[in-house]
């Protein structure tokens, strides 16, 4: 029996009846997909470096500015979440599962602190 792609996706991302570990999985999967899509975008942007200084500089002027700051902040948040939760998964899958709930809470708190701090640094980087 086959499950349709639509039903599969709603099974992965079902929120009803789930707890902390369920939400952690949902966000990890979404952030994983976003980050993988970003590899493509990132490499595409780097192409401008082979086309000389003016191509690169005009691209940087277009993308590194206050209008794109919200996206930068979002992207760094996505990276921080996926990295820290990824570390939690490494610990659970490869070492011990027992502390995964505590680790989630700790990593969320640590992650939010890092996110606020790096967002401020990004703001300074873009505005100055």
């Amino acid at each position, binding site marked *: *029996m*086959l*499950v349709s792609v639509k*039903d*599969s*996706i709603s*099974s*992965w*991302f*079902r929120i*009803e*009846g*789930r*707890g902390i*570990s*369920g939400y*952690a*999985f949902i966000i*990890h*999967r979404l952030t994983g997909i976003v980050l993988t899509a970003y590899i493509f975008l990132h490499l595409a942007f780097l192409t401008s470096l082979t086309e000389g200084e003016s191509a690169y500089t005009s691209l940087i002027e277009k993308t590194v500015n206050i209008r794109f700051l919200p996206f930068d902040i979002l992207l760094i948040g996505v990276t921080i979440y996926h990295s820290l939760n990824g570390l939690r*998964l490494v610990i*659970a*899958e*490869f070492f011990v*599962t*027992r502390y*995964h709930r505590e680790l989630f809470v700790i990593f969320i708190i640590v992650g939010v602190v890092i996110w606020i701090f790096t967002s401020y640094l990004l703001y300074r980087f873009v505005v100055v």
Partner: protein
Amino acid sequence: MEEREVTFIVKRFYRNEWREDRYEFKAVRGMTVLDGLFHIRDNIDPSLSFRASCRMGICGSCGMVINGKAMLACSTQIFDLGTDVVRIEPLRNMEALKDLISDFDDFFEKHRRVKPYLIRKEEKSIEEGEYIQTPDELRKYRQYSLCIKCGLCYDACSITGSNKEYLGPAALASACRFIMDSRDQGEDERIPLVSDHTGCWRCHFMAECSEVCPKEVDPADAIQKLKRKALIYSLKRLFRR
């Protein structure tokens, strides 16, 4: 005794059609969801079907989805749910047969597939006595042997919902139960079974299976152990050749 008016909204399946029925009745403190269903069947609607046997959380028959979460109806008190409106549906990752009764065939077939019995390269004769095990050796797998095959974890796992071939938490925990057993010698048969596309690599440690398990089997933990066992087994294979 404390009494309260409660509403059961039951998602029912009959002859390929889904429908929802509402039942209102007075529940008393201490009444389980299963008691509520019996009350409905005996006093309101004799056509309501559900499975149950032991009424004490040991047979694993009464698994169903209660307010979005898979639970044993007999081990869940109505007043503990924190709401007077109780939505009940059959387990989601199995086919419904009638009302709250689900088809466990796939679930049991997957359990059978991991060879849930001791495999010996050579059997001892009866005269030689039993296979001795120390308490420590027992502790390595005891927890995983407590599974009652209720199928709650099968409902909670988002991968069993998307991949019909995935063995699922209960079968994999069962495989782990035998692989961790000092008396078992079936590694060569069982590890290849659980280490392919439909086995432990489908698990992404969502750990919802362990959240809903009424017996604290912790299948999520068992599956991560299986992954490490399978890795070591593979590495040995790769370097022996």
